[in-house]
């Protein structure tokens, strides 16, 4: 092998898989979304009918609303929690630091299915730990108004430790002199947090916000096992709705259309966030 061909040889495995299993399917899903596909052998061209149906489909909008609710909840609740955990752990002289960090991180190691099982038990009306601590008999997962907040809380428990690790790394990369300079200028802890910590963390915050958004919009396993999208459709998410049409109703054309809607929404949100944070501006 000549050295000039070597890089292409080394890149071939990734780009082959990426082309066959990502690029081609992305284009194929454009084709599929213009067909009514009922089973593999039964495809009829329907043009834009799937898109018209999607826009008029109230359940799609419910799923979108629920997914957006979860994403917003994660952003507003989970990320501040993650940042707070990182701030608490940021002192290198803290005793038991590794142990605390490992504890906060441990939920990340667990599959969503098992997290769902755990929270199924925690949220039980009579025997669940949550109600026992509160001394209540709230039906967290059966009340349409409470089911999404309950899922957001489960999401906080699951992912806060993961994002904490990013914030922690970001905090450690802030030079100590910046804080000293701020202290000389008479800044208190709050002021140095706002004027030193937050600006220095901006790239990390951007990264975490964008990845958690993309992750939140793919929410599936938690509601699938925990509530099956219920009660009614109060916890139906977009990927669940896609799954239902594609693999339960075997309506692949419509499912592909939902997939594209999801792609467009995630794309738009990512672009807005990239612009807001100015992530790639320096490069």
């Amino acid at each position, binding site marked *: 092998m000549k050295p000039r061909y*070597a*890089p*292409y040889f080394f890149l071939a495995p990734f780009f082959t898989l990426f082309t066959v299993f990502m690029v081609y399917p992305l284009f194929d899903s454009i084709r599929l979304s213009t067909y009514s596909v009922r089973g593999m052998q039964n495809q009829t061209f329907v043009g834009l009918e799937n898109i018209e149906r999607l826009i008029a489909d109230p359940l799609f909008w419910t799923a979108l609303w629920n997914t957006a609710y979860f994403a917003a909840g994660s952003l507003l609740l989970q990320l501040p929690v993650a940042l707070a955990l990182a701030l608490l752990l940021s002192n290198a002289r803290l005793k038991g630091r590794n142990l605390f960090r490992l504890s906060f991180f441990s939920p990340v190691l667990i599959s969503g299915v098992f997290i769902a099982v755990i929270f199924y038990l925690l949220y039980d009306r009579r025997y669940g730990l949550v109600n026992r601590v509160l001394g209540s008999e709230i039906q967290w997962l059966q009340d349409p108004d409470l089911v999404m907040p309950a899922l957001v809380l489960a999401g906080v428990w699951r992912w806060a430790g993961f994002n904490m690790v990013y914030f922690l790394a*970001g905090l450690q990369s802030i030079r100590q002199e910046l804080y000293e300079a701020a202290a000389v200028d008479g800044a208190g802890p709050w002021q140095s947090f706002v004027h030193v910590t937050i600006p220095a963390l901006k790239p990390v915050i951007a990264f975490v916000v964008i990845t958690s958004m993309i992750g939140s919009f793919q929410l599936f396993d938690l509601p699938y096992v925990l509530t099956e999208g219920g009660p009614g459709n109060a916890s139906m998410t977009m990927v669940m709705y896609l799954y239902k049409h*594609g693999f339960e109703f075997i309506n*692949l054309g419509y499912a592909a259309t939902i997939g594209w809607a999801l792609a467009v929404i995630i794309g738009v949100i990512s672009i807005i966030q990239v612009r807001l944070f100015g992530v790639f501006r320096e490069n």
Partner: protein
Amino acid sequence: MRNPVRTTITYVLLILLTVLVLTPLFWVVSASFKPSGEIFSYPPTFLPQDPTLENFTRLFQEMPIVQYVVNSTFLATSHTLLLLAIATMGGFAFAKYSFRGRGVLFAIVLASMMIPFHLVLVPLFTLLYQFGWLDTYQGVILPYLASSGFGVFLMRQFILGVPSDLLDAARIDGTSEFGIYWRVIIPAVKPAMGALSIFGFLGAWNEFLWPMIVLRDAAKYTLPLGLASLVGVYRQEYGMLMAGTLLSILPILALFLAMQREFVQGITLGAVKE
């Protein structure tokens, strides 16, 4: 930490939060050893009053749990090995060669990290149908590897740090390009491969939706799939569900504890550098 009040508050908060995070996990362990009557006792017992292995024996008797563990291990291991090969090769190409199209190809890798895998579930399914790969492990593993862009990026970051002199010295000695990859690059980036293998293993071990779509035969199920089917049948059998949950967490926890340092190093590299 010179301020004793602040130190105390920090520790109190940390301990409270740790309790909050670990209680559900403690509950899992405790419930796995409780007889079914005790899980529903009132007031609740924190430690099992009458510890039993009944949940575990029933789990092994009524479910092919050993089969699930074997399947999950096989699937996650093959995924991880392939991911390591793809990512180190790709990362090596981007870090140590200049070639036509490098900028564009690298931009594609970065963009691929933003594409959620779940978007292409439906067209992937029809593709696997055409390949005749439904209900096969290659059908689960290979499409999932199309999302290896993160691994390629991560390995590039590490391989950039390998001195190019080492490569040139090997070339003068007549080592082939593949020989350089195998005998110079791979040994130099072993710690980074440790980080990436935890990512890969964790992802494949825990993935639920994609294997659920591809696999039909229950004998091929992974642990999450097996447990999810158990949830349907045994909604009220919390003890068994908890025992199954505990069994599936243990291997991943052991792996994580063994490689914690590499993992934290790897997880943060993507976010902080560049």
